[in-house]
């Protein structure tokens, strides 16, 4: 299944400046793995061996997957995944 993933500005250097990419998989974990295979370095910016890193959030539509099933959250056709990193600038 192909899901749209929105890439934040900070990570677009890893996606050849693409704002949105598509990824395949039935869970958030599978999507992240798929992205990691195609965009080297991206997976490590999202997850570490403990799960989703603590300074980035993964939203499925408008819900933070940490409050769903984390990396095991199921995704379905039409869903949009957004990566929202902490931003400090002012």
């Amino acid at each position: 299944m192909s899901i749209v993933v929105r890439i934040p500005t900070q990570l677009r250097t890893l996606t050849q400046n693409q704002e949105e990419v598509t990824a395949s998989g039935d869970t958030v974990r599978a999507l992240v793995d798929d992205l990691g295979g195609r965009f080297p370095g991206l997976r490590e910016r999202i997850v570490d061996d403990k799960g989703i890193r603590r300074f980035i959030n993964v939203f499925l539509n408008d819900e933070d997957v940490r409050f769903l099933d984390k990396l095991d959250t199921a995704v379905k056709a039409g869903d949009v995944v957004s990566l929202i990193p902490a931003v400090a600038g002012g």
Partner: protein
Amino acid sequence: MAKSFADLMSETRRGIREVSLEALKERIETRPDFILVDVREGEEFRAGHIPGALHIARGHLESKVESLIGNKDAPIVLYCAGGTRSALAARTLAELGYTQVESANPGFVQWKDRRYPMVVPRVLTGEQRDRYSRHLLLPEVGEKGQAALLDAKVLLLGAGGLGSPSALYLAAAGVGTLGIVDPDTVDASNLQRQVIHATSRVGQPKVDSAEFALRELNPDVKVVKYQERLTSENIDRIFEGYDVIVDGCDNFPTRYLVNDASVMKNKPVVHGSIFRFEGQVTTFVPRVGPCYRCLYPQPPPPELAPSCQEAGVLGVLPGIIGVIQATEAIKLILKKGQPLVGRLLTYDSLGMKFRELKLRRDKECPMCGEAPSITGYIDYEHFCTLG
């Protein structure tokens, strides 16, 4: 034979319960489980009254009281200037079926002479009525809301990209006290977005430059300057007395420090941040909604923090985000509308898209969760400073 005034008053006093000022003061301080009603004229009330008193002028008592105090068994204490009007009002309330009414004797004149606590509600001057006329026309603001703005104290963290537009609109709106924390001086490269500053003030401390602009805009505003970097040492002193914090600072260590202090001190923070063409805004109200650590428990390690110096930012972007922050601060002061509590608003200026994401309180949050692990301030290493 018709009764004289003296007859009427002595008969009235026999039929009601009276309370001394000493006893009233003690009850206000120890068990304020009653409704205090000031029955004097509007002018007298506006010149000063007992804190927390409801105002119903005696002339409107019969017509208004039932809509304002629905429970006829509620304990009520009435007062006026000397104890006469409140005695007559107590008799009227008894006739209307109110069962627990007392009248203070003497009244407010003595209360004031004894220097018991009183408040003087703000009365707008003629100039203020002109200046804020477009606010006064809005029922959601009106005289009461404008007075709340004039009495409000807002602390701006940073007089930079976000702080500039926030400060200008908050001052224009008549927020009475604006604290500004910024250690830096105005640089020519700031002027592309930091609209509170000016070419003629390059080299001046940002707090001085901002104060100058705000004074020019609205002399009602008191500007309190803090030309220092916010640290665990000074944050308690600087936060003291402010109602709302507008966070437009430029680095992670300060963001986390601000969050932790605001949770400890129970102060709302309007959070804004920007990067290149994108911005984020949300409002953190401690224990009502999530805090910054519910969202991001820890700052990123220095090597993954965006390279701020090289990042660049579209000049108008902080204008949009900063003005949204000012809007949130004003709503919090007015207690109107739906603040961005539990909602993260993201803005993409290139795509011209606003999106909203749900933020939830994390039970395991190290700061505001069920078993917080952070009990003191943390000074994270400063690894990123964006001018």
